[in-house]
């Protein structure tokens, strides 16, 4: 039979050993989370696309309602689980694919196999989520000494911009910060010499001591420095990333991205956020491992 390619271009089908390997590691990681008291949840691959939270493929069901394919687990889990949370707390774990119209991260496939966890109303916050994510990566066989953890605080870049320019952040300037294009930024938003130098140092990844005070984010930098010191003790390299993420992130506190040295790609990510429940806002945190990339990162 002369069949066309069985999958759309850019997605991956695992066959034989690779499929077994992924299944085994997935089970090891899920068992670890179950042992830690997390409850397994199976989240639907389809959800109603009633707002901007579903940013991927959309189509219409038989009743004419807009349906979306899941692009991310965290907001989906929050929407599904918030109604049954009440005043209590919950810790859940999950695994499965998310499908995105195009990769959102460097060298990612549009379809990504994720394994992750979320906690609602529990202590630990973003730091706890980071620790657990690194545990999962280590269990998957990734050498943590070959990882780099990039830590940020949601909105940090925007706060810096408000402080140095005295105006609310505008998308064009946010994009320049993300690209670390200080030259064009300073052309569009001229700053006093000290502030310009501090901004340049921040975007060049120099230690926060050189710029945090001048940019008015010393307290935030101190919080990140505390996390970095803990990571250093564990032999994990980290940095503070000032540049804001792309719009649409739901994290509103500490957030992290774990990069692999061999793949030069993102292995895992997570952070802290809040969800709305009947009794008000509830603290939440989570992390997820991109299983396919993590497997690729493992030493031979």
């Amino acid at each position: 039979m002369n069949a066309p390619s069985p999958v759309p271009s850019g997605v991956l089908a695992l066959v034989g050993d690779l499929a077994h390997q992924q299944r085994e590691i997935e089970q090891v990681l899920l068992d670890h989370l179950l042992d830690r008291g997390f409850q397994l949840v199976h989240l639907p691959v389809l959800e109603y696309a009633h707002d901007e939270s579903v940013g991927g493929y959309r189509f219409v069901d038989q009743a004419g309602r807009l349906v979306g394919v899941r692009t991310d687990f965290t907001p989906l889990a929050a929407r599904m689980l918030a109604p049954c949370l009440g005043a209590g707390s919950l810790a859940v774990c999950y695994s499965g694919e998310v499908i995105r119209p195009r990769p959102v991260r460097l060298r990612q496939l549009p379809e990504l196999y994720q394994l992750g966890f979320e906690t609602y109303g529990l202590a630990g916050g973003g730091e706890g989520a980071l620790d657990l994510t690194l545990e999962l990566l280590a269990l998957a066989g990734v050498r943590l000494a070959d990882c780099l953890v990039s830590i940020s605080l949601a909105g940090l870049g925007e706060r810096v911009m408000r402080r140095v320019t005295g105006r609310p952040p505008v998308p064009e300037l946010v994009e320049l910060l993300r690209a670390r294009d200080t030259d064009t930024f300073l052309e569009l938003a001229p700053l006093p010499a000290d502030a310009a130098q501090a901004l340049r140092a921040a975007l060049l990844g120099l230690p926060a001591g050189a710029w945090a005070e001048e940019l008015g984010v010393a307290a935030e930098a101190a919080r990140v420095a505390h996390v970095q010191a803990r990571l250093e003790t564990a032999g994990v390299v980290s940095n503070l990333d000032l540049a804001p993420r792309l719009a649409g992130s739901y994290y509103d506190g500490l957030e992290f991205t774990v990069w692999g040295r061999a793949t030069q790609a993102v292995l895992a990510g997570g952070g802290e956020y809040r969800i709305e429940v009947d009794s008000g806002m509830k603290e939440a945190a989570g992390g997820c491992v991109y299983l396919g990339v993590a497997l690729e990162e493992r030493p031979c």
Partner: protein
Amino acid sequence: MLTVALPKGRLLDPLVELAGRHGLALGEALASAGRQLVVEMGDLRLLLLKDADVPVYVEQGAADCGIAGLDQVLDREADVLRLLRLPFGACRLCLITRQGAAVRAQGRPLVLASKYLRLARLLAEKRGLNATVVPLSGSVELAARLGLADAAVDLVETGRTLRENGLQPVEEWLAVSPYLIAQRAAFFWKGNEVRALRRGLGGLE
């Protein structure tokens, strides 16, 4: 070892000159390399690439850093860091028409000719223009002169070629300069080497 993608085109000579002024002897290494496309120079591995390919090599991690025009970076939608704007090769991406002609398309989308398929479309959208882009790979200005398109979108340096061909830039759409670009992961992993290269191109810290 830092892998740096260099453009073989018009940016190479001024780049070599700039680097030489800051103590980075790219010229000697490239001269002794003959027709080789990969040249080792101390802790640097230099790749000589077609200008438009530099952002692709960098974004995908085949090179840690590179030198590329903003036009190429944006047209390729390359998610790379732009760490230093270089002080040469500045030009403008302009909307170009025949001299004396207005940019007008009655009752149909405006037809633009450009080498920059995505960037021209994006910039037209930003201006609220309903436009289709005809992709061309060279002598784009002629498309406007000969009526293949209502207007062209192309780089203008001095404007002399346009004048000699009966054309004019009617709007500047983007200021274009070459940049030192870096791959996001490489910037995290090789921060010191990347910053040293940036200093070697005159960047201040």
